């Protein structure tokens, strides 16, 4: 009974972590950018969906779509207003672009967070679930919304996999994440691949944000922890390795759920952090990372 419960609850949260981290790691793999405004974009998506539903009174589906659309716009804004100017700048030496992108996206994230807090206070918001009610799975009363979350996460990740492996654009993205120079040699425009990747990122972060808003709820306080958790998962899995992130998301998700059930909810995040430290000591490139 308890085992089933852990299995079911752990799955939904892990799938959500996986979705949140996938876009993050994809961008790093393709363009070497660690986007520290990630948490802010996710929260923005959820708050937009909430505001659409409770201020503009649109229905839940439209609200969710508005949330994802807002995240997409925010992702493009991040790329065109912050990341690209830094990458193209001639005044910043190449070896320092990394720290500038980090600082820039971090400031950008703080700006988004402050605006959310200004307009909607820092109180937590929750998005009305698309499907309400509960069903019984093997004696575990599970909210339909939780199942919905898990299914959507898996579907989106599967779609992404199909796109990357089956479409021309997707293959180019995959190639770019393996070797950016190789792509330019093949005559593909690296710039347009970046735009595609940021679009994918925006949609993924938006869906993850809206689902998070339905499943757990978000507030402007969640910005930092969300970025940090995506970061930890990606580091654990290996920077830039999408499959590594997926594995790491499930490891972290289940480790947290196990701790919460078997030890105490107060210590929920600690074992995952300890694991992260251990991995950094023994295998700094992460589970599936390349040096």
């Amino acid at each position, binding site marked *: 009974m308890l085992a089933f419960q852990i299995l079911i609850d752990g799955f939904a949260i892990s799938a959500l972590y996986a979705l949140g981290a996938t876009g993050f790691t994809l961008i790093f793999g393709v363009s070497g950018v*660690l986007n520290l405004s990630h948490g802010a974009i996710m929260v923005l998506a959820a708050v937009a969906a909430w505001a659409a539903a409770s201020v503009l009174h649109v229905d839940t589906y439209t609200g969710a779509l508005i949330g994802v659309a807002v995240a997409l716009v925010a992702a493009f804004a991040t790329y065109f207003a*912050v990341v690209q*100017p*830094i990458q193209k*700048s001639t*005044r*910043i030496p190449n*070896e*320092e672009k*990394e*720290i*500038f992108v*980090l*600082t*820039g996206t*971090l*400031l*950008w994230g*703080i*700006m988004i967070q*402050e*605006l959310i*807090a*200004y307009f909607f206070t820092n109180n937590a918001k929750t998005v009305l679930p698309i499907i309400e009610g509960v069903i019984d799975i093997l004696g575990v009363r599970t909210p339909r919304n939780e199942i919905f979350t898990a299914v959507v996460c898996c579907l989106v990740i599967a779609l992404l996999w199909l796109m990357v492996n089956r479409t021309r654009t997707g293959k180019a993205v995959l190639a770019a994440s393996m070797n950016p120079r190789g792509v330019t040699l093949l005559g593909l425009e690296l710039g347009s691949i970046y735009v595609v990747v940021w679009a994918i990122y925006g949609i993924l972060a938006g869906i993850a944000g809206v689902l998070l808003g339905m499943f757990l709820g978000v507030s402007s306080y969640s910005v*930092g922890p969300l970025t*940090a958790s995506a*970061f*930890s998962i990606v*580091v654990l899995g290996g*920077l830039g390795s999408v499959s590594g992130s997926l594995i790491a998301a499930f490891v972290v998700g289940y480790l947290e759920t196990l701790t919460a059930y078997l030890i105490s909810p*107060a*210590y929920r*995040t*600690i074992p995952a*952090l300890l694991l*992260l*430290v251990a991995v*950094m*000591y023994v295998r*700094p*490139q992460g589970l599936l990372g390349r040096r």
Partner: protein
Amino acid sequence: MGDFFKSRLFFVSLAVVIIASTLPLYVSGYVLGLLTVAYYFGVFAMSWDLLFGFAGEVNFGPTFLIGVGAYTAGILNNQYGWSVYLCIVLGALAAVVAGFVLALPALRVRGPYFGLTTLVAVLMLQNFIVVFADLTGGEIGLTIPDVISIDAGVNYWIALGFMTISAIILYGLSQSPIGLVLQASGQDPIQAGALGFNIVKHKLAAFVVSAFFSGLSGALLVFYFGTASVGTVVDIAVGVQVIVAAVLGGRRTVLGAALGAIFLIVAGEFLRPTGELATFIVSTVALLVILFFPNGFLGAALSHGARS
């Protein structure tokens, strides 16, 4: 080093310090209080810049070192009632030890991995403080029975003196042969290694110096505020502020970092009438500076000076 004493930068700095030291004679206690905090932040930012600008290592966790120094000093004072100065010294030493423990494994890895390790260290410290709430005060923060002084002028002079001495040592170090080796190893570690320098040893030294000043400054700050809390000395947001200050002021200049820190804190206060939007405005300005003047205040001023 010799050139420095003849340079314009030296005279400007000297004049600024002299003017700053007379401020308590004609400025209100509140402005002094604000600058006191800004000066301690200036030391945080300078220590960070030594590590980043010269050793080329991006330390995402300046607040790990600051927090260890601050909390060690605070806890010792709170638990045992030892004298403020002893606690401050022990806090700084604890930060050095923590810096050493962190640096040994962290320096084996490069690039983003070093930054990640330092970031994780902050998260661990934060959890530690919350879990051992009996000792640390946890979420609610640690109340510290003693403060250095309640007189705004005295606090101000201590902070100014401390920042000036730190600036001299850190700047001197960055211009010394050690600093040059660090700079070389930050830019091209293989070549620097080939020239026979022990890079790891140099970097470790830089880390330890950075840790010492961060911890010392953290401990002093705690005895200025009379309170230590995660939100004040450990939170990632505080670390972000330190990094932004250093980049804003001009990285690789050490002194610029202090300038950036003072700007951030004073600007935040001047914007108080804008209320909740103050942080938003400061972040926006900082982002614009990073995008359009990537060399920061001092970097821009220096390059302008060189051209004219």
